[in-house]
């Protein structure tokens, strides 16, 4: 059955229905994105046309208004600032620990790693109420810093686990050789392990960026106006005088772009992130 396909009629029919299922699923996956992309280039009349329009005179008005009439540019900038800072900070904190945990294979390391994983699994809502209470006191609400801090609960475990898997791939002989040459553990880390891990750091950084970029609940509760991210900002387009569906579609397409670019980039690498690379509720 693997690559060996017999030619009987029954098998052909089975194959046909198999391909049909994949095709239908593909349609299900891609059609909404395709439709929203069309919608983002329609004016209001075209958007509500019955039957639905596939061929029409496209307009970029929605994209233009999104940035000129609405504050979407500010929201995007906030998202970029927060996502980049969060990724960088979590790499700075997480990579050294990932390296250490790859080198020290004790029961305690295992326990700590399990705790790191579990802390990532706790639903975001369980953190957000305490954050709301504490941040109100510390005046961290509606600040980039506050948001970046909370995103560490998502990204730090991710960085530790992903980077650890990279460091585990390095053969221990290299480190032992370095140690024989008189290099301290610090030197081994900075001079040997880090340079070798550069591709891993890049990929992990990108995943961390996407996680922060996509985050919703922390931003919903902990921002007001100065630090509002695009994920929250896009919801603000639902207002009276009729929701601006076209603008919302345009915003959605902009927010999807990193996902589409990155899906290509990380496809081969993705599986390693499977256990911790998802968003939470």
């Amino acid at each position, binding site marked *: *059955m693997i690559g060996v396909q017999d030619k009987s009629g029954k098998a052909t029919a*089975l194959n046909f229905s*198999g*391909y049909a*299922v*994949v095709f239908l699923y*593909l349609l299900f*996956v*891609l059609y*909404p994105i395709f439709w929203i992309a069309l*919608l983002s280039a329609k004016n209001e009349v075209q958007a509500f*046309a019955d*039957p*639905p329009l596939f061929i029409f005179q496209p307009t970029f008005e929605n994209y233009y208004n999104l940035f000129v009439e609405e504050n979407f540019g500010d929201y995007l900038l906030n998202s970029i600032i927060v996502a980049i800072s969060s990724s960088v900070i979590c790499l700075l*904190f*997480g990579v*050294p*620990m990932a*390296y*250490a945990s790859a080198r*020290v294979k004790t029961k305690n390391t295992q326990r*700590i790693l399990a705790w*790191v994983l579990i*802390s990532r*699994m706790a*639903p975001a*809502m*369980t*953190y957000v*109420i*305490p*954050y709301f*209470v504490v941040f109100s006191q510390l005046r961290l609400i509606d600040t980039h810093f506050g948001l970046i801090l909370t995103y560490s*609960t998502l990204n*730090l475990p991710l960085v530790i686990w992903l980077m650890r898997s990279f460091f585990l791939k390095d053969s221990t002989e290299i480190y032992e050789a370095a140690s024989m040459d008189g290099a*301290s*553990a*610090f030197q081994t*880390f900075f001079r040997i392990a880090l340079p070798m891990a550069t591709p891993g750091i890049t990929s992990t950084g990108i995943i961390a960026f996407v996680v922060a970029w*996509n985050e919703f609940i922390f931003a*919903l*509760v902990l921002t007001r106006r100065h630090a509002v991210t695009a*994920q*929250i900002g*896009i*919801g603000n387009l639902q207002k009276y005088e009729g929701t601006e*569906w076209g603008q*919302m*579609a345009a915003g*959605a397409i902009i927010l*999807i772009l990193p*996902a589409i670019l990155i*899906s290509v980039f990380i*496809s081969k690498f*993705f*599986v390693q992130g*499977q256990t911790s690379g998802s*968003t*939470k*509720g």
Partner: protein
Amino acid sequence: MLSDKSTFRLLSAPALLLLAALTVIPILLLFGLSLTSWSLLVPGSFKFSFVNYAERMFSDENFVHSLGVTFYYIIVNTLIQMTLGFLIAFLLFRYTKLRFLRAIMIIPMLVPPAVVGLMWKMMLIPNLGGLDYYLGLFGIPAIDWLGNPGTALAAVTIASVWEWTPFVIVVMLAGLDSLPRSPLEAAVMDGASTLKTVFYVIIPMLRPIIIVTLLLRIIESLAILPVVFMMTGGGPARATEAINLYAYHVGLEYLDIGYAASILVAFIFILLIFCTPIILSSLKSDSK
């Protein structure tokens, strides 16, 4: 000069301290808050009290209702995602020509959840989404999807299947790819049908991965919150409001912090109840 051991400790310390501050303290605080009747709208309500657990939760119909929705999401959404995900993964594994589709398949899980919600909301709005038009071709009348409890719940399930089935596909594919070839080939040699091979050879071999995936999907089944928030806001008539969204409404809309905290503590216990048997069964099969 530092010993290697202390170097490793030093390298780990900043991350561990940061993570502890950001996760252990809030969870302890959450437990503490759940034992108060603190509401930000009621002066002097910051008092120790067991009332949330002793009385309020069990007489609160909305809480009980949100539990029902929670179980629905955990069971129905997860089962559909798992079944469909396994099916598609198996087909992609089998039809090697479709390899190029794998990258495309993962797009939905990278799309921001808020956008997933908005997107499906737009898809379901009459005319705007065009869905009614296609259904109309089959003689199905227009449905006010987000206006009725049953259909709204179904709509959320569809969106969750869209968003998270790819995760199952990716993990299952990784599992399928790593299976040893010989048992599969032996099964084919024995003349076993595809269906039999799947049920008697592949699924048992994939068992550990299936269990881990199931566990992850259950734990994250309520990560659907942003999608629900954007699609229905929890309505109509709370039909799509699971326990975490209910806690959000109680805590951050009515500012009833103490009660919201106790709801979230209950949520943690529910996750444990669902996950513990699965973990135990996986440990048992490991030790065999």
